[in-house]
């Protein structure tokens, strides 16, 4: 061991130069992998906040043809109450929310204190949908949220109340508990009033009223004049919250197999993951190429060292060193060069990551992109892997020179000047 390390000091420049090759290779790999890991983590965090465990299920409708273009398309795969029950009974499901939409064409009037206002009817809270998972749901200004199985309860929007002349917080508070009517006026000439109790006011920019799913179903049934509409059409949407991301993936797969149209952030994430793997593979290949060149450099250094130390090898052999001992001596030395290069590469790669991270954040701040975070993550397993890999590259590069050293004839070697 002493001899091996002592010898490295004999030609410091040569040793350092051959280690630099490994440094460049490991540096590239560490930077790339840490970028991959960091970005992946960042994305995962963003999405986790948005609800990666959430699955949206839609019924499947018939393809529209020229003859049916203007008719309401027929549903072929229904979200039945049985499906809702089945999902609720699963152990890997936390929450199941069926949803019914009051048709867009339906005109609904809100009657409050003798005034009338045309409003949109929404179902449940307003965190529905995937189009913009990063937008916060509207804030509650007064009262409470709808319960999951709310009946006869309504949440009104601030905008709608203001249109009706309720401008102050205190006035909104007063509205809570009051009875209102949602009046449906069908094209066939009928009018029907549905009584509700106001339970909350939310900060929404639409003229809207949020009601529970049972009430929405009643409104819809009346609109289409079909009391058994749930039986014929099923629910319009189903939101399932799985207990974990992996469970969500499983459920998505099952529902897709059963013919449902499923939306999940998980599906989006899978695509991002795939893109990241491609990126990492490409960048990793650059590092691997650098390491290949580095290993040729180390092999060259070691072949030179074997020439220079021929006499020493002869002495060691005369003293009873076996070919194996000689081989170990040179392979150790070579692995050590790799390790030194690896340590330097890991440190420089880590520093480069920190620097680039600052640069990215500065650019993002300048561009006013609202993203903050760590995009280069050098984890302990990456450090260990990098060092092991660097050592291995050194070790492999040393195998051939070491074998040459081990094969030397002791008499020839002792005669060597």
């Amino acid at each position, binding site marked *: 061991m*002493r*001899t091996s390390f*002592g*010898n490295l*000091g*004999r030609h410091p420049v040569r040793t350092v130069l051959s280690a630099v090759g490994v440094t460049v290779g490991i540096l590239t790999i560490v930077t790339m992998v840490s970028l991959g890991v960091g970005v992946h983590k960042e994305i995962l965090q963003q999405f986790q906040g948005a609800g990666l465990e959430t699955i949206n299920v839609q019924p499947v409708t018939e393809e529209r043809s020229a003859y049916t273009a203007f008719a309401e398309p027929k549903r072929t795969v229904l979200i039945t109450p049985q499906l809702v029950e089945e999902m609720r009974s699963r152990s890997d499901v936390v929450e199941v929310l069926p949803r019914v939409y009051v048709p867009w064409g339906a005109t609904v009037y809100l009657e409050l204190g003798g005034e009338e206002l045309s409003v949109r009817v929404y179902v449940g809270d307003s965190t529905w949908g995937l189009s913009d998972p990063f937008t916060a749901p509207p804030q509650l200004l007064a009262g409470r949220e709808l319960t999951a199985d709310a009946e006869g309860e309504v949440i009104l929007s601030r905008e709608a109340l203001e249109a009706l002349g309720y401008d102050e917080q205190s006035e909104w508070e007063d509205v809570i508990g009051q009875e209102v009517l949602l009046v449906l006026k069908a094209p066939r000439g009928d009018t029907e009033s549905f009584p509700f109790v106001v339970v909350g006011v939310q900060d929404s920019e639409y003229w809207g009223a949020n009601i529970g799913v049972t009430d929405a179903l009643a409104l819809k049934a009346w609109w289409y004049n079909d009391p058994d509409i749930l039986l014929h059409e099923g629910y319009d949407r189903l939101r399932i919250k799985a207990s974990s991301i992996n469970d969500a993936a499983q459920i998505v797969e099952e529902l897709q197999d059963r013919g449902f149209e499923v939306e999940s952030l998980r599906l989006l994430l899978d695509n991002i993951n795939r893109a990241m793997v491609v990126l990492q593979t490409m960048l990793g290949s650059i590092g691997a190429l650098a390491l290949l060149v580095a290993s040729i450099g180390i092999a060259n250094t070691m072949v030179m060292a074997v020439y220079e130390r021929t*006499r*020493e090898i002869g*002495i*060691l*052999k*005369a*003293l*009873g*060193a*076996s*070919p194996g*001992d000689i081989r170990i001596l040179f392979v150790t030395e070579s692995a050590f060069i790799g390790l030194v290069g690896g340590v330097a590469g890991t440190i420089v790669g880590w520093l480069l990551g920190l620097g680039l991270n600052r640069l990215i954040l500065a650019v993002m701040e300048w561009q006013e992109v609202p993203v903050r975070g760590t995009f280069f993550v050098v984890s302990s397993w990456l450090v260990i892997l990098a060092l092991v890999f660097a050592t291995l590259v050194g070790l492999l590069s040393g195998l051939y020179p070491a074998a040459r050293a081990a094969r030397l004839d*002791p*008499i020839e070697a*002792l005669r060597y000047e």
Partner: protein
Amino acid sequence: MDVVVKAVGLTRRFKMGNTLVDALRGVELTIARGEFVALMGPSGSGKSTVLNLLGGLDRPTSGEVWINGVELSDSDERTRTRYRREQVGFVFQTFNLLPRLTAEENVALPLMFSGVPLKERLARAKKLLERVGLGQRLTHRPTELSGGEQQRVAIARALVGEPALILADEPTGNLDTAIGREIMTLLRELNQEQGVTLLVVTHDPEVAAFADRVVGLRDGVVES
């Protein structure tokens, strides 16, 4: 008689370019345990070749080499490595110490190949260096030692494995006469005190005079 070395009909033929050179043409040699033998002859007489064969560094073209009951002439590399490690110690003309190791580490080096623990290696090295008069030079490197001191370190290194045989190739060749005499005196003492079997190759009659017996070698055969 307890025989350590027995060489029977040793021949060694080298190929030099296109010509064949017979370095040895039937050498017969027997050395008893505890004997101090000088192998003398002019350069080109085949002295070094005999030494290489007895040291297990080379194999004869024909003939047999028995050392301490082990036949070396048709042994494999593994056997000869083991033989060099356990049965023989070399002293070279040019000392051949490793320049980056201290005196102590140089002496302890052969024991590393036999797997002796570091502490014991250094302890044994220290004891031998004290015996050869270098107790104050344990941590000096070869470049910090005189020629005579370096050769003493080399002798200690040859002894450390407690070999059956010590082979010395012109041990005084790179030393001046006075120092050379000191080295030969040391070898003589070690031979008498510890019963070390010694074969010294030399062309110098004054060096040969230290031995119990002188064997002459000329043109690849032992002179009688």
